[in-house]
C-alpha cells in the first residue's frame, strides 16, 4: 500500500491535538492526527476538573497566563458553534483568614495584569448569598465571573468530529515508535508498528508522552515531565445544588488544591489531589486518596453529601519541571513543533494553544488557504444533538424521522437508541461501550450502566454486525464478555 503523505501530522488526539486539527481543518491543508489510544481524549483530557479557568493563577508574563486568558474567551464561541455544553458559571477562591485574603489580593492583581475581566474580592455576606452551603468559616472570596465549566472530552469530540468532517484523517492505536527526517525531500516519516505516514510538518501534542516523542525524534525537551495523578469523585445529580460556582480553596505550593464544582451535566465533581506517580498510565484510585479529597471537599462545603457518590476516577497530568507551557519549533528539527508541558489550565487555554501552534506553522512556511466548502458543524448533518437536549418539538420530529429516538435505553440520562446509533455512525465512530458512554452519557447516571450496559452492547453489536461477545469496553483486549454460556 502506498504511504500516505500529509502537510501536517499531529501526534496526540487530546484537547491540544484535536483543537489544532479543528483550526487546521478550515484550510486547504492535508492533515492527519495520530493517536496511541483507541479514541480521542484517551489521556489527560478524559479525566480532569473540567474547568475553564479565568486566568489569575499563572504568573504575569508567562505563556500559560497569556494563553489561558485568550483561550477562556474562545471556548464559548466554539462551544456554541459545535453544540458543546459550556456554562460560564464563574469561580470563587475561598479564603478563611487574613493570610488567605492577602493571597487573594495577590491573585486579583495578577489576574488584572493577565487581562482577566470582572475580578473582585467579595466578603462573607455576599459569598453566602451566592453559595449558601459554603463553610461558615469562609470569610472572603475572589470572584471570577469569566470562569466556566465544560465537558472536556465532549469539547475534544466536537472539534475532532468537525475536523474529520472537513477532511482531517484520524489514526487510532497509532503508537508512534519511529520518526525519521529526510533532509533531502524535507519529509518526516512517522511509524507505529507496521504503519507509516509521511508529513512536511509535525506537531507533538502527545501530552504526558511529549517528552518520549521528542526522544524518539532525537530531540530533547529542556525540562522533565512529571506525571501527577489527581483523583476525583462524582456526585449524583440530586446533589447538583451543592455549589453554584466552581469553589477553590486559596492555593498553596502544591497547586490549586481540591475543588467542589458543578458540572455541565448537573452533577457535582470533587477533587483532585496531586500525587506524583511512577507510571503515566496509572489512573487507578486509592482509598487514601479518596479520603483525602473527601476531607478537602468538607472543608469547603461541610455538609456535602458524600453518600451520593456515583463514581470515582483519576487522571494523570503532565507537569513540566519548568512550570510553563512549552510551545515552539524544535531547534534541531525544522518544521517540528513541540507543544509540551501542557497541564492545567491546558483545557481553558486549548483554543489559544492551537492558534499559537498555527502561527508557528505559518511562520515556518505552511500556507493557509481557506476552504470554500468548510462545514461549520460536527457532521454534515449538524451537531448531533442528543434527545435529552432537544426541545419538545425537536423530539417529536426526531422520533418521526427515526423511530429509534423513541426507544429509551438509558433511563438515568434519558439516552435513546437513536442517540447511540448516531454516535456509532459519526465520522469518528463510537465502537466501544465507553466511547458510546462518553458521547451519549448512556451509563453515566446514578445506576452507572446497571440497566443499560447490556443494551448498549447489543446495539453496538447490531450496528457493527459483530457478536455481543466481541464488543469492547474501551481497548482491543477489553471485551466485556468472555463467551457463550453452556447451552443445551
Amino acid at each position: 500500500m502506498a504511504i500516505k503523505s500529509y502537510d501536517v501530522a499531529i501526534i496526540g488526539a487530546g484537547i491540544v491535538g484535536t483543537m489544532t486539527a479543528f483550526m487546521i481543518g478550515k484550510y486547504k491543508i492535508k492533515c492527519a492526527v495520530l493517536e496511541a489510544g483507541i479514541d480521542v481524549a484517551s489521556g489527560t483530557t478524559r479525566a480532569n476538573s473540567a474547568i475553564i479557568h479565568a486566568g489569575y493563577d499563572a504568573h504575569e508574563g508567562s505563556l500559560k497566563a497569556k494563553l489561558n486568558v485568550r483561550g477562556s474567551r474562545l471556548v464559548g464561541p466554539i462551544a456554541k458553534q459545535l453544540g458543546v455544553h459550556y456554562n460560564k458559571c464563574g469561580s470563587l477562591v475561598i479564603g478563611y483568614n487574613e493570610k488567605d485574603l492577602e493571597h487573594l489580593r495577590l491573585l486579583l492583581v495578577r489576574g488584572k495584569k493577565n487581562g482577566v475581566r470582572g475580578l473582585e474580592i467579595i466578603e462573607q455576606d455576599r459569598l453566602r448569598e451566592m453559595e449558601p452551603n459554603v463553610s461558615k468559616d469562609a470569610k472572603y472570596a475572589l470572584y471570577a465571573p469569566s470562569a466556566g465549566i465544560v465537558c472536556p472530552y465532549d469539547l475534544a469530540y466536537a472539534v475532532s468530529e468537525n475536523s474529520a468532517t472537513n477532511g482531517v484523517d484520524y489514526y487510532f492505536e497509532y503508537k508512534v515508535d519511529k520518526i525519521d527526517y529526510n533532509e533531502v525531500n524535507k519529509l518526516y516519516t512517522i511509524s507505529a508498528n507496521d504503519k507509516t505516514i509521511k508529513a512536511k510538518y509535525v506537531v507533538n501534542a502527545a501530552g504526558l508522552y511529549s517528552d518520549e516523542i521528542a526522544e524518539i525524534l532525537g530531540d530533547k525537551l529542556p525540562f522533565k515531565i512529571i506525571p501527577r495523578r489527581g483523583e476525583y469523585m462524582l456526585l449524583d445529580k440530586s446533589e447538583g445544588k451543592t455549589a453554584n460556582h466552581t469553589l477553590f480553596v486559596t492555593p498553596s505550593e502544591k497547586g490549586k488544591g481540591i475543588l467542589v464544582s458543578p458540572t455541565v451535566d448537573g452533577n457535582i465533581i470533587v477533587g483532585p489531589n496531586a500525587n506524583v506517580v511512577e507510571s503515566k498510565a496509572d489512573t487507578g484510585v486509592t482509598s487514601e486518596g479518596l479520603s483525602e479529597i473527601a476531607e478537602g471537599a468538607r472543608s469547603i462545603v461541610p455538609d456535602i453529601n458524600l453518600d451520593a457518590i456515583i463514581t470515582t476516577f483519576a487522571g494523570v497530568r503532565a507537569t513540566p519541571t519548568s512550570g510553563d507551557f512549552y510551545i515552539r519549533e524544535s531547534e534541531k528539527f525544522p518544521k517540528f513543533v513541540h507543544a509540551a508541558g501542557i497541564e492545567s489550565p491546558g483545557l481553558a487555554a486549548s483554543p489559544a494553544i492551537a492558534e499559537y501552534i498555527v502561527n508557528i506553522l505559518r511562520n515556518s512556511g505552511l500556507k493557509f488557504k481557506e476552504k470554500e466548502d468548510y462545514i461549520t458543524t460536527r457532521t454534515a448533518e449538524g451537531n448531533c444533538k442528543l434527545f435529552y437536549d432537544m426541545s419538545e418539538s425537536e423530539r417529536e420530529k426526531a422520533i418521526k424521522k427515526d423511530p429509534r429516538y423513541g426507544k429509551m435505553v438509558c433511563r438515568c440520562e434519558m439516552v435513546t437508541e437513536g442517540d447511540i446509533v448516531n454516535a456509532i455512525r459519526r465520522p469518528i465512530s463510537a465502537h466501544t461501550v465507553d466511547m458510546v458512554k462518553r458521547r451519549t452519557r448512556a451509563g453515566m447516571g446514578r445506576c452507572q450502566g446497571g440497566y443499560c450496559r447490556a443494551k448498549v452492547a447489543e446495539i453496538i453489536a447490531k450496528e457493527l454486525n459483530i457478536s455481543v461477545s466481541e464488543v469492547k469496553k474501551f481497548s482491543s483486549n477489553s471485551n466485556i464478555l468472555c463467551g457463550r454460556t453452556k447451552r443445551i
Partner: protein
Amino acid sequence: MMKKKLVIIGSGPSGIVCALNVYKSGIKAEDILIIEREDELGGTLNLCIHQGFGKNELTGTEMASELSALVKKNNIPYLVGTTVISITKEKIITAVSPTLGYTKIQADAIVLATGCRERSRGGLSIGGTRPAGIASAGTVQRFVNIEGYLPGKKTVIIGSTDIALIIARRLSLEGGQVLFVCDTRAKPQAHKTDISECLDYFGTPLKLRTTVTRIFGKERVEAIEIADLDKDGKLIKGTKQKIECDSLVYSCGFLPEIELMQEVGIEIKKLTHGPKTDKRLETNVDGIFACGNARIIHDDVEDVMADGKRAGKGVSDYLWFLNKRDRIREEER
C-alpha cells in the same frame, strides 16, 4: 390528547396487581392504561429465570407470563416499549415509543410502579483500575439469562444479597467458576436456605467480614485484593491477599426508581430513598400513588404484590370520590 382515568407506570408485579384490583373494583378496563418501557409485560420478573416466586414456587418468567395473561384476559389496555419521561402535577404524562412517537396522556390518577434500580458501586470506593469485567448483578442477569453470554470464567461476587447468591449459582451452572462470594457484614444478607442451595451445593465459599480493597488489570480484570475486617469494620493489618480472577460482580442492593417523582415534587424519604406515602399509598402530590419497590424495597415478590393491591384499593377510592365530586358539581350546575 389521550385521556385515561388511571395510568399505571410499570408492569412488574405491583403494577399489574394494582391494575387488576382497580378493574375488579368496577373501573372499566378501557379507562385504565399500563405503560411498560420493556417490550414485554412483567418487569424485572423477566430477568429472573430462577424458581421461588409466589405460592407455587414459579420461575420469575413464568410468573410474568401468568400476570400478563390476566391483563390480556381482562382486556386492560397496555403499551410496551414505551418510556414515560415526565409527569406533571396536573397528571399529564409524556411518553415516548418508536411506534407512538412523542405522546401526551391526561390521567385522573397515576400509580408509579416503576420498581427499583441497582445501587452503583460508586459508594464502594474500591482502589485500583476500572477495566472491563466489572458488572452489576442486573447486567449479569441480562447477559446470562437473556443473551446467553458469560461475563467471566473466574468470578468474585461482592455482596451476599439473595440476588448475588442466585447469580453465583447461575454462573456455576452455566460453566463459570465462582471463586467466592464476599461481604463486609458479619452476617449474610440472604436466608440460610439460599446459602445452602446457591453456594454450599456448588462448593462456593462465602467470606464474611471481607472487603475488596483493590482491582488490578489494564484492559480486563486480572486480579483483586481482599482484606479481612474486624468487628468494627476496620481493616485487619497483614490480611491483604491478591486473588487472580477475570471478573467482579457486585450487588450493592437496590434503590426505588424515583426519577419521575423528583421532578413533580414528590417528597422523598431519606431512610427508604422512596416517596413518602399515606395509608392508601398516595404521595404528597394529589392523585399520584406509588407502590411496590418504587415505594420501598421489598424482600419478597408477594409483599410487592400486596403493595400493588393496597395501591389498587387506594386509587379506586380516589377515583370513586373524584367521580362523585364531579357528578355533584354537574348537578349543581
